[in-house]
């Protein structure tokens, strides 16, 4: 027996499986998180003024900033958070302690501007149908090129950022006949909020000293974005200053004749300012301020040569800094892209039709999760019972049970690692992958232990024969699922991908481990 156990733990197939499980557990990162996690910080609210940062969307759920206490009273759940904040009177100051630091807030209105949710206990991101939230599928009224589509999506992201919504997914989806869709998912937001947000036309305005000179739409005719018209300014380039690197970018925009005239009128009365640092007089006394939906998002210096001139082609430049050359280039290009996106807002007159909305209340979602877990466990247990009865050997039933559970863990690990949302369709996919996996386990068991062939071939040959059937069945399933990835606006993408990944893990990781186990223990 000892010999067998030693053989088991030194078998490379079993070690490989164990490695996969360990890596998956690290990716899932189960944690006993306390407090409530911050989902969104509203702009200009008490919370954002106090310096609580907007959570970045790509942060793993467990690493999210969590509120632990409020005025030293512990916060355990969403309910206690809302009770505590409501109990503080307006115009009072209070302290919030989070996992990343302590903040002093002044309560200026009833809403302190934080949106919170139960602290996530693992890195598995639940799909909207499991955690509550809203998903909207939009279709552009006219067909867009791939380039315009990406501009539109960047644009929407920029706008939703202005509203302080970070836990949000915007992506494009296509179907086989070339229909284009945009999927917007906002966890924890209500349907009304999203519809309201999307219904608003992106309003862009550029002002000089409170005078609007141009708006998005007809005023900005063209924003240069191609590589040779926009990028790092070749005449200025990058330079180091102290420990920092700076790069300048430039791109040009084309204004309509009317907008150029308004610009000329607005700059006519401005003065050219002398900059004592550079010793030059490059810019005018007022800046060009950019507003998105009435919120100031950026400002630009106006070149002295533009004063009072109705020029339609304007060069726009700016800079970015970084610790080294690469970082400075990256940051300045990032800044440039953001500026371009803002300027384009509204100049893409595409109407978006809402073709589908799902709003799931978090209450329903919570019950669904518990129920889905219970169902999966019972289904897995029932397989083990049936196998146990059929073969009358615990040494077959238990490893099949372990194999199924490892497949669940590894699949969830993959999901946590690549930041995929587990929704109902994905759970169905997991169950199918495990189900066909059981089929394969049965083939391995029967090919190696049962029947007339048992004494004819050596063990290696028998395993080879079992895997021949398994590989063929695997390939057929993969080719059958592949078309689904591309069909129908991605509605079944989650299901198809889960099935394929699950079957792949099964064939290359868990099945070999199972056959190694059977060989060592039962040969």
């Amino acid at each position, binding site marked *: 027996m000892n010999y067998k156990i030693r053989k088991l733990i030194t078998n490379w197939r079993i070690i490989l499986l164990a490695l996969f499980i360990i890596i998956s557990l690290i990716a899932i990162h189960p944690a006993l998180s306390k407090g409530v996690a911050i989902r969104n910080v509203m702009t200009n609210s008490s919370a954002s003024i106090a310096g609580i940062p907007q959570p970045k969307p790509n942060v793993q759920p467990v690493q999210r900033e969590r509120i632990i206490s409020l005025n030293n009273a512990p916060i355990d759940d969403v309910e206690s958070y809302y009770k505590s904040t409501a109990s503080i009177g307006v115009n009072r100051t209070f302290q919030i302690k989070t996992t990343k630091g302590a903040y002093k807030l002044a309560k200026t209105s009833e809403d302190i501007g934080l949106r919170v949710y139960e602290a996530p206990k693992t890195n598995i991101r639940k799909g909207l149908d499991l955690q509550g939230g809203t998903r909207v599928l939009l279709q552009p009224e006219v067909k867009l090129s791939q380039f315009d589509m990406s501009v539109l999506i960047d644009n929407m992201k920029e706008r939703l950022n202005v509203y302080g919504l970070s836990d949000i997914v915007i992506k494009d989806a296509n*179907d086989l006949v070339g229909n284009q869709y945009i999927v917007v998912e906002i966890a924890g937001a209500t349907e009304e909020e999203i519809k309201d947000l999307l219904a608003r036309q992106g309003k862009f305005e550029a002002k000089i000293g409170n005078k609007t000179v141009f708006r998005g739409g007809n005023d900005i005719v063209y924003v240069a974005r191609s590589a040779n018209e926009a990028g790092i300014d070749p005449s200025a380039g990058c330079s180091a200053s102290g420990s920092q690197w700076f790069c300048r970018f430039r791109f040009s925009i084309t204004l309509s004749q009317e907008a150029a005239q308004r610009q000329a009128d607005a700059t006519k009365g401005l003065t050219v300012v002398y900059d004592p640092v550079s010793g030059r007089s490059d810019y005018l006394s007022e800046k060009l301020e950019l507003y998105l939906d009435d919120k100031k998002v950026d400002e630009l210096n106006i070149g002295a040569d533009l004063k009072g001139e109705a020029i339609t082609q304007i060069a726009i430049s700016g800079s970015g800094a970084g610790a080294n050359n690469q970082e400075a280039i990256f940051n300045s290009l990032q800044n440039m892209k953001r500026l371009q996106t803002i300027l384009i807002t509204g100049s893409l007159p595409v109407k978006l039709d809402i073709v589908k909305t799902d709003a799931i209340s978090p*209450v*329903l979602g919570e019950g669904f999760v518990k129920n889905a877990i219970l169902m999966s466990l019972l289904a897995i247990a029932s397989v083990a019972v049936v196998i146990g009865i059929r073969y009358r050997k615990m040494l077959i039933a238990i490893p099949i049970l372990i194999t199924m559970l490892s497949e669940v863990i590894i699949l969830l690990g993959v999901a946590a690692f690549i930041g995929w949302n587990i929704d109902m369709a994905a759970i*169905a996919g997991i169950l199918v992958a495990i189900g066909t996996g059981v089929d394969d386990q*049965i083939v391995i068991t*029967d090919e190696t232990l049962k029947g007339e062939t048992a004494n004819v071939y050596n063990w290696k040959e028998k395993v080879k024969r079992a895997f021949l*059937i398994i590989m063929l*069945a695997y*390939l057929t399933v993969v080719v059958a699922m592949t078309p689904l990835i591309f069909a129908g606006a991605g509605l079944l993408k989650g299901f198809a991908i889960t099935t394929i990944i699950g079957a792949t893990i099964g064939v290359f990781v868990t099945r070999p481990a199972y056959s190694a186990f059977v060989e060592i223990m039962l040969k």
Partner: protein
Amino acid sequence: MEQKNTEQKKSIKNTLFEVYDKKYKLLLIIPFIMLFLALIQIGYQLYSTGDFIQKDVSLKGGVTITIPYDKNIDTSQIEKQVSSRFPKNDIAVRTLRSAGTLVGVIVEADIDGNDKLQVDRLLDSIGDALKIDLSKVDYGIEIIGSSLGASFFRESLVALAVAFLFMGLVVFIYFRTFIPSIAVVLAAFSDMVVALAVINLLDIKIGTAGIAAFLMLIGYSVDTDILLTVRVLKRKEGTVMDRIISSIKTGMTMTVTAIISIIVALAVTQSEVIRQIMLILLIGLIADIFNTWIQNVGLLRIYVEKKAKKGIHI
């Protein structure tokens, strides 16, 4: 008496085996009649409703409202009450159950979801029928435009056709023979068609999840068919019949295990998505027993016989 009984049992078993072994061509009638009847049902459905399945709102477009609710209700009564306010629309009320107890009510209506007035009117009438104030309840609402459902459905059919083509190709590349490859694809096709006909007869509406379930059937279906084909064509030990019997032992273990776990999942689940998927899989797997062990076996044996006539023994 006891003795006689077991003898009788034995002889029944022997006769059954005899029939299965010798009359396999005649037995082929069973799966083909099943397939034929299923196709007639689907044809009739197409003729009488204009569609070969009953689409739910996720394919047709409309509104689905899910309300947590735990008192026992008469769904047909609620349906009548809500329908009376929407005489032109198709309203369906279902209950959401978990382990037998009611946890919620689902109302589906093919109204225009982007028309806020209509949706509010629907919510009002549901609230009245259930005698609850919906503004105090955390309900879920799903709205689907009609064009999306239609295009999704078309796309799924294309995806299905492509899936069949690829599958046939993989099997053909491996076995390099025509009839066995066709038999595998035909079995998967028959599973789906029979499951579809039964779902129609049970008056169940199919949504996007159901389409996924039909595709999943492919996976389970090919498992048994490939097991059978590999054992019969690529193995040398025993007679063809021996290899078939050993395949049945393995294959039935697979199918029975799957069926039992599906029944467990069906009993426990609360999710309409999972329920629909499991039900379709259950029917498909039962059909698969006939389509693999009578249809596919029959076609394979005809193929083997033809080869034997040409002097090639498998």
